[in-house]
């Protein structure tokens, strides 16, 4: 499964993801976790409050609906190697659609600070939420998978 270059109009989306408000400029759904409730759109950002909500309420960071068994995380290969993701848990279907849709925009997406060469998609039973330890340093929350059943690498 490779990431399609011009997939915007042709990538089939899970119904709940397609229901999300669409960013008029890019023509893609605005992820639930990047909605800062202030009218601005930054398609790749992780709003900390929302990320925590996704983790605690067990909802998908992209479509905002209740997760299903087979919780999925996406991130860089480094994040997967360290088992520390910074994008909240997702539905498998939403994660796969997202990898076909967002990287093609050519900007940092899915919580990553820069373009990613190899995406990792990890499916797990459960995960732990790690809040930032101190006011200095990395202020992002992190997610650690604790029952990995699939670990895939995909070119960016």
């Amino acid at each position, binding site marked *: 499964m490779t990431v399609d270059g011009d997939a915007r109009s042709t990538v089939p989306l899970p119904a709940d993801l397609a229901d999300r408000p669409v960013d008029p400029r890019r023509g893609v759904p605005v992820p639930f976790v990047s909605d800062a409730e202030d009218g601005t759109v930054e398609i790749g950002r992780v709003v900390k409050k929302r990320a*925590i909500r996704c983790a*605690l309420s067990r909802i998908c960071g992209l479509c905002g609906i209740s*997760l299903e068994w087979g*919780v999925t995380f996406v991130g860089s290969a480094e994040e997967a190697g360290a088992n520390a993701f910074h994008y909240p848990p997702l539905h498998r279907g939403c994660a796969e659609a997202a990898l076909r849709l967002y990287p093609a925009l050519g900007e940092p997406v899915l919580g990553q600070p820069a373009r990613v060469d190899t995406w990792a998609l990890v499916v797990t039973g459960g995960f732990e939420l790690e809040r930032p*330890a*101190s*006011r200095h340093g990395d202020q992002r929350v992190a997610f650690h998978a604790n029952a990995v059943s699939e670990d895939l690498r995909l070119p960016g």
Partner: protein
Amino acid sequence: MAISDVKEYTHLSEAEVEELGRELDAIRAEIEASRGAADAAYINRIITIQRRLAAAGRITLFASRFPPAWVAGTLMLGVAKILENMEIGHNVMHGQWDWMNDPEIHSSNWEWDTAQPAEQWKHSHNYVHHQFTNVLGYDNDIGYGILRMAREQKWHPANLGQPVYNTLLALLFQWGVALHDLDLEAIRKRRKDPKEMKRQLRQIGRKIRRQIGKDYVLYPLLSGPAFLSTLKANATANLIRNVWSYMIIFCGHFPDGAMHFTEEEIEDETRAEWYLRQMLGSANFEGGPLLHVMSGNLGFQIEHHLFPDLPSNRYAEISVRVRALCERYGIPYTTGPLHRQYGQALRTIWKLSLPNGMTSEPDPTPPPRRLPRRRLTDAERPVRRLETGSWSRRSA
């Protein structure tokens, strides 16, 4: 008195709080690493016991016209409902058992035997209550929108009826919980999105229809001539569950010693400060293993709030270490017998039904510092202004 800065309240320096955070992190990591077959066996055993009790209760109640069968069936069903609600449902939905990678015991698809839809519970409880624990204006569990539980909450003449609302809430607790995520206060203040409210009401309606159908229509009908006695038995079993879970839950954050917090506290709260707030805002109660299982291990409310997604059967062993940590850092650890914890909650409900002027303020003195006194480092000393107008630090 509501706390704005947990560090100030507990007389701990930033470094000490971080150290405390690290020690709690270590406890967490140890428990995470040691989850295994024994824990999996525990939850599976509890689930099997609960389902057998429920099946036995229902079957016994087919003979509900016969008083001993009525009593036995009602009790079995009541206990089964309590177990399902507290030790199983609440804990599974927190994700405590997700690590097993078992699709039949998973937070994403567990639906519990009460009127509230799981999705709404996971929002109002897992997120709103556990993230904003005891923060005034954010945590809806401070009074559930109908009770005044903190002096800082503005008094209104309607609060005079509080003891009555409290009794009603106890008897009808599952219905109160069902409506909880609607956020009555937001609705009153017209802050609630009407579309969202409609969607939630529809979801609640569907759940309620199935629950009512099961307990108050189908089972009574199936027991034929025992229709009325089965209906009364089911209602009583629900009542038992309502009152018991109400009492346990009210012991979690309403006894004296469980503090409230202001908005300022949660601005850039670090992980260690979050831990501290959870400890200061929660209250335990004491009891034997049976009591703890029957109360969903919420007698370890402090430990549950520190580690909501660790398996509940581990809270007892965690509590020994947490208690020792509190001792060492001089942090109050609120606990007591069940009747005293509930008694204090009840007293507060009565007390706060009256305006503040008519009742006495609880002693606001923070606990004394227990850590040994030592010289402050240069970094910890306050900055002093000299007469010439420049800043300097007082030398050691």
